[in-house]
């Protein structure tokens, strides 16, 4: 298991030797049941919705943008639901492991886009509106991934993400601009929600 995967999981669940066995067990199950899918589309010019803050700043100096949608599929959601009935503690751990695992698989998939790119910025970060996910869905048309948008504007399956990646500029995640910055529990403990250790 990569240390980043584990540090992400610890960021969600707290670091305690007591849960390590359960974390390993959950990750093993997730690896065998999840059906990871990734769909993306490349744009030479940022689509309309990205021409405002905070996206325009994030994309400043890039020469193209990739919009992407990714998911672990409905099997993972279903398993979390069953565990919530039979073993709630495991359900909590499974849920957190699934989120971290999705981030991890997405990171690995995105290596094909080369090194000269930004991190994956998701609507909801840095004061952006989570409802903007709908523009990504409209543009990427991720039918083949099975990701759909509900009327309330969130994605199903639950373990799904929609991201924006700028090409031609290298940036890494920071807390700057985060709406939770002032009262972030992770930061108080010297951690980051995205799992990186030293930023």
């Amino acid at each position, binding site marked *: 298991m990569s240390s980043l995967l584990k540090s992400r999981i610890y960021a969600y669940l707290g670091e305690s030797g007591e849960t390590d066995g*359960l974390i390993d067990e959950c990750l093993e199950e997730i690896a065998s049941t999840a059906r990871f899918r990734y769909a993306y589309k490349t744009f030479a010019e940022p689509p309309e919705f990205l021409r405002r803050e905070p996206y325009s700043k994030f994309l400043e100096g890039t020469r193209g943008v*990739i919009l992407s949608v990714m998911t672990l599929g409905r099997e993972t959601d279903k398993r979390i639901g069953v565990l919530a009935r039979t073993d709630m503690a495991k359900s909590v751990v499974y849920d957190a492991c699934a989120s971290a695992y999705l981030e991890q698989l997405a990171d690995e998939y995105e290596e094909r886009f080369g090194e000269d790119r930004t991190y994956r910025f998701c609507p909801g970060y840095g004061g952006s509106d989570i409802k903007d996910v709908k523009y990504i869905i409209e543009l990427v048309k991720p039918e083949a991934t099975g990701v759909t948008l509900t009327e*309330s504007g969130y994605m199903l399956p639950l373990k799904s993400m929609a991201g924006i990646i700028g090409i031609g500029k290298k940036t890494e995640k920071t807390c700057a601009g985060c709406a939770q910055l002032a009262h972030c529990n992770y930061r108080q403990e010297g951690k980051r929600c995205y799992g990186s250790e030293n930023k």
Partner: protein
Amino acid sequence: MIIFDGGMGSELEKRGLTGIPEELNITHAEEIKAIHRAYSAADIVTTATFGLNGIKYHGKYGIKEIAEAAVENARASGKKVFFDVGPTGAMLKPMGTLTFDRAYEAYAEIAEITKDIVDGYIVETFSDVYEIKACVLALKEHSDKPIFATMTFDSSARTLTGSTPEIVALVLEGLGVDALGANCSLGPRELFPIAERFLACTDVPVIIQPNRGLPRMENGRSIYDLTEDEFVYWTKKYISAGVSVVGGCCGTTPEFIRRISEFSGRKVKSHKTQHGTSICSATKQVVVENVKVCGERLNPTGKKKLKEAVERGDMDYLVDEAIKQQEAGADLLDLNVGIPKIDEAQALSAAVEKIQEYVDLPIQIDSSDKTAIERAVRIYNGVPLINSVNGDDDVMDRVFPIAKKYGAVVLGLAMDERGVPKTAKERYAIAKKIVERAAAYGIPKHKIMIDTLVLTASAEQSLVKETVEALRLVRRLGVKTALGVSNVSFGLPNRGLLNKTFLTMAMTSGLNMPIMNPLDGEMMGAVKAFGVLSNIDGNAEEYISTYKDYNAPTAAVVTGSADKTVANLYDCIKKGVRSQAAALAEKELETSDPMTVINEVLIKSLEEVGRLFDGGKLFLPQLVSSAEAAKTAFEVVGKRLPKGAEKATVVLATVKGDVHDIGKNIVKVVLESYGYKVIDLGKDVPVRTVVEAYEKYRPLAIGLSALMTTTVGGMEETIKALRAANCTSKIFVGGAVITADIAKEIDADYYTENALEFVKVLDSITK
């Protein structure tokens, strides 16, 4: 051999037509007509209406207006016109929020508009077998035109929602479509094995419309490289394998279709298949052969707790029973909610919907109420088994039309209006009558199973062997058999021994489906042992994998906490060892009264856990483990409490529009660990349901959760409705995006940041 047309999207792109394709039927009718004309080498052309349904399309034109224009455009080809019907783009309940009925209505609207102006329907690119069921039913019930139905598969040969070609064929053939198969998804080479699987499992004509190979991405666009020659080569292969309808999907052009049109009208190799008796959920198919175990525990007869759960509409109890049976190794589950004075039709379909949310096993729908059966079979995501008919003509005339319409398998009891005949021969005669009557309804043998009926050995000892003998006879009819095994021991001591022995006798005589308790390890063991001794379980693989550790039985394994031993209840809760909580609570009760156990042990221990959690010394999973252990202990101690000493009731719901319920579930287990009685309404809960729950339970508090900013509106609306109902319960809100300010703004009484705080505030209210 019938030839369909090819890709529409790529042709639009070629002509520089962007925008919503459905609307181009009106804004660029001439161009659309030109594309249809270009495809006139096909036998059937399809309308440019893939995204046209009331759930997906919200544009500036009416659905009727577009549909009619699209049909007129397609008519320009001079060929037969099939109306193209695509998925809604929304996810159905329970994973999503779209109801089966709403999906059905959207497709019924399409059928109503088009039934007199088209030659048929091509239902295509579906990825959810439940959604395609809603669609096909709507089309069939509103039109009598042919329906061709195709789904998409990925390289693992499953649809997005996990259905295999066999499951898709079982469902679509059951619904009576005119052709079924696969489209889009992959290229002709990759789709070929899927076509072969369809051909091997259905008699219905198979339709395959592949993409032009697997695309590669270039500057964000899909580029298809497969040549026309290759496409022709593969089409020829499909035809010689027995595929009856071919065409193209993404990337294919009029030239591709012109090239394959030379095969039009060619005779197709017949592909008659050997059908087994199959039932399925959306993700699991059970072929009834050898021995398959049907779990009997979801039947209220003789089960007081289940009966009470059904009476109060507590579906959670049913779901827990279903999960237990699945985990114990059942192959399918019997479901019966027939108790007096309830609306059985409503209760049965609600139970079906709830159980299929959590359990993959196929369901046996067990009822004698025709309306209840039809509603449950309709809402079922898959092909169920109906339990039951018998030799009574009236009963068969009620049930067979339902089975025929939905493709369900029917269990026939070898008895009639006169009762259960004594001899095996008489029971065989009734079975034969059932099979023949079914045939008259167009229901083939493989859709019928026969139960030769178990009488109790205590009352009818001499007749036990008749039941067994009847199994032998009935198998000659070419149908599979079932028995409610445990009836045999009723009224005798050591029932388990009789049940197990009888099960073995029956399996030897050809019993395929014992309806029994899968939680009974001895009975399940007998099935596994039979598998070895009758040479079904090759190399005893399954048997060995079950019993390899038999000589070294280990303590009950509880995830994550198996290795911990604890000395007393206090430590048990602190360390979250649920498996030992009940026993240790009993032990504690030997020396202390219930209130002391609660106040001095349970609550004290939970308080320490709470302090450790607040201090960052212990984290969420441990907190939840402790709460689960305390909850288990509370269930034991609570039974000894004097009446009136129970804690208050709390209603919890994840609000309308939101299905993120993990936070609510954590709150639930923590509240229960402190002894509160929780009514959990679930997720995506309509406003009305919350108000009804308030009126029914008059709880101390109502807790509402919402994870997304976009669903806070649903929360506000719920609170407004509760206030309008003069709600006197305290309203708590929580969830990732909720703050004290938002809580105030939407008129909640309390905002609590986490589950422990919720308990603290509740305790302070009750003091």
